[in-house]
């Protein structure tokens, strides 16, 4: 489904694009209806029937069948093919910090072990939005379940340690070294597409993934930061000029470089980042909604960021798991749905992929009102993916001898898929195989 990546063509398209301003180009694209017509992606099940996965079979409680041929909810004809040009694609990574529980996100309501192991925490089948007769989504994903998505099952870490920081370091460093995964990715994309501007962006305010980035990375912790930068009057130009003059050793160079990157980003910033506090995206999406609002603005303004990182904390649910996780799912539903709606309105649905990440999962059995750190988990991807279930179903009946869900697919493969199959990056995590068929 993805075309062979042609660097020369990509470069030419990139140069073509630069002739118009980015914003005009994007608006033009939306206006010409260049977005393709619907295609249904089907998967042949073992019984030979063709199922249209990624479609939601009605409301919670409808777990009667899995051979429905309902297309994706909402506007079925707006199912997007991914934009052919890798250089136009954007990856949004939402970090679920603390270790997200896979079975609470893609709920194995068809497995009695789920209820045996978690008598207090398991979500009743009637509250699940079914994907098929085996798994479903939490009721809080009312909006997202109507959009195109893929679930990726059996993702886990291959490290022995269940420390937050070991796991975070792994994904932050993309498999090794001191440079974060997002930074490595950004560096490669900057080289590939020859951009001087912004490549990687975190709207989460603190992004270790961006440590060590050479070029074009920005971390924002709110919409207000943008406003202050857009002034071109009074002492602001003199200031921006002065601070790019510092010379010295590596740290000083880093400082000067940071200032100069800020300067070059200023011109591309969105003019208006007024946040609508009444919108569901903000009111229920809360911090994540705020972050994705800024991200949407940065994308709409064509600032060039290819990899965007956002974060929602609170997943380390050693206690009060049921209520806390439900709240977090509501936040994600409101924030991500709102963001996808913005991308749709901007005509960018075919080029923005939203992927959830988390440093690890949680243990199979409950522990009081909570769950200890675990291993295998399930993640989700929204946007122009092959919808449905991917990866390997790892069952609560098949825990390892520490009571953890197994790792069927290493986390680094998931990251490789996003970097390589979606963004066309070659050099990052080269020893890992992509999860075929996801993109």
């Amino acid at each position, binding site marked *: 489904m993805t075309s062979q990546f042609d660097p020369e063509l990509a470069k030419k398209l990139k140069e073509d694009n630069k002739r118009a301003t980015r914003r005009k180009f994007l608006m033009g694209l939306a206006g010409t209806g260049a977005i393709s017509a619907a295609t249904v992606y089907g998967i042949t099940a073992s019984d030979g029937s063709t199922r249209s996965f990624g479609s939601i079979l009605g409301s919670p409680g409808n777990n009667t069948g899995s051979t429905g041929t309902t297309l994706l909810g909402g506007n079925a004809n707006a199912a997007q093919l991914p934009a052919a040009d890798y250089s136009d694609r954007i990856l949004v990574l939402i970090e679920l910090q603390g270790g997200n529980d896979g079975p609470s996100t893609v709920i194995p309501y068809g497995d009695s072990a789920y209820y045996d192991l978690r008598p207090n925490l398991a979500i009743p089948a009637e509250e699940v939005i079914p994907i098929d007769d085996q798994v479903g989504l939490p009721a809080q994903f009312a909006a997202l379940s109507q959009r195109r998505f893929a679930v990726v099952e059996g993702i886990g870490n291959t490290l022995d340690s269940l420390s937050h920081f070991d796991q975070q370091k792994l994904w932050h460093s993309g498999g090794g070294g001191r440079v974060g995964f997002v930074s490595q990715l950004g560096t490669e994309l900057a080289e590939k597409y020859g951009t001087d501007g912004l490549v990687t962006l975190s709207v989460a305010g603190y992004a270790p993934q961006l440590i060590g980035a050479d070029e074009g990375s920005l971390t924002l912790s709110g919409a207000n930061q943008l406003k202050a930068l857009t002034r071109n009057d009074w002492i602001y130009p003199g200031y921006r000029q002065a601070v790019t003059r*510092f010379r010295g050793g590596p*740290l000083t160079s880093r400082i000067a470089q940071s200032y100069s990157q800020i300067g070059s980003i200023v011109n591309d910033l969105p003019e208006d980042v007024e946040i609508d506090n009444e919108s569901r995206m903000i009111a229920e999406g809360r911090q994540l909604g705020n972050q994705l609002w800024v991200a949407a603005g940065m994308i709409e303004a064509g600032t060039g960021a290819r990899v965007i990182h956002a974060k929602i904390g609170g997943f380390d649910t050693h206690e009060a798991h049921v209520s806390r996780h439900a709240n977090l799912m509501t936040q994600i539903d409101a924030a991500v749905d709102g963001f996808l709606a913005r991308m749709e309105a901007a005509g960018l649905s075919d080029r923005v992929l939203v992927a959830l990440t988390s440093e690890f999962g949680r243990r199979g059995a409950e522990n009081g009102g909570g769950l200890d750190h675990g291993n295998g988990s399930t993640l989700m991807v929204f946007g122009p993916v092959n919808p449905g279930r991917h990866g390997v179903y790892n069952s609560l009946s098949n825990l390892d001898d520490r009571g953890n869900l197994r790792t069927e697919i290493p986390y680094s493969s998931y990251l490789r898929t996003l970097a390589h199959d979606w963004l066309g990056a070659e050099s990052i995590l080269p020893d890992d195989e992509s999860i075929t068929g996801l993109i």
Partner: protein
Amino acid sequence: MVERNGLADASKLVRRATLANDPVLIRQIDDVLKQDGHAAAVDELLNRSIDNATIPFNWADEFSALRNYHSWWVDRILEGRNPVQEKMTLFFHSFLTSSRGSSGGKYGSIAQQMNLFRRHALGSFSDLLLDFVKDPLLMRFLNAQQNVAKRPNENLARELMELFTTGIGPYNETDIRNVALAISGWRLDNDIGRVYYDETKGSSESFSFLGETRVWNLDSVVRKLLDHPATADRITQMLWEDLVGEGSAPAGLGKGWHDRGFDNLWLVEQILKSQQFIDSNHYVRPRTGFEYFMNVQRVLGFPTDEDYRPRNLGHLPWDPPNVAGWPSGERWIDVGSILARSQVLQYDYKKVEGGTTAGAEEILDRCAIFEVSNDTLTAISEANNAVDVGDAGKAQLRWWIALSSPEAMLT
């Protein structure tokens, strides 16, 4: 690099060893330095009585009290009765973390923990740690009060080893499970902040831990970890990197600290008097968010109960980004943090003494920059060339440049 007013060495000492970076203190230290040498100057800085004052609080204080606690501490830092005590408070808090979000509605618990750190900052690290693991805010932060023998919760056991003592290496996942059991049974009545041990919720099984088999409990586990050489070495190295900025602590320094009952004052003294400290370059590591903030706070004089600035810089004490606290190093210099630091300089400079009139020399003095590069000097003087800007604007621009310079960002 240009030295100004002969104060370069004294300013390095004060800048590294204190938070307020006060030019008045720099001159005081410089007098001793010039007269009696470096070791005497360090003594002048360290030989002060411990500040025993505590943040006033009520256990059931509400969220609004947090700004008062913050304000109390910032004022105390600016006052400078025992500047190194405040610095070491921040140092220990950088890896012995708890979050204001874990108070369970009793915000006095934060003041209580702040007081705990200030009390032990120049005392003994072992005393600090033994008290810390029974601190109510820490217990809630790491779910210790839910750790009971029937359902052990591993959070505190894991972080006790990974973050507070040895670091990853000497223990494995089995140790974490065993230790979690051994330290189970500690309870917290959060209504009144009472911490107590309930043996009916605890466990007294014997197991082997770090080479010793016995029935373990919270105190014995902590002492065993303190005894492991990795603990003293790891924390010594962290403090070394903080104060010296580069290189490795000498072999044996950690052991010396351990053998003296983890005497913090002794450890600071050894590091500050070391030849490596004397030889270290001026600007070798980034200032952390709070270090940057405190210097600007002292210079510009913001209202001290405004805590949004250090929060925007990613370094509001007792509001860590995650369980590990705050890392050090390059992480503090990137586009986002530089941007955030520029934001902090946006202020009404009419409220600042000389804010709209000061020349370059006065500005550099007030910012305590006594070793400065030619590029920074040039950048500041070029403020005079700003187009369509009056004299007041040019002065403000000079302040902005000085506080954005590498000399302000690094230490």
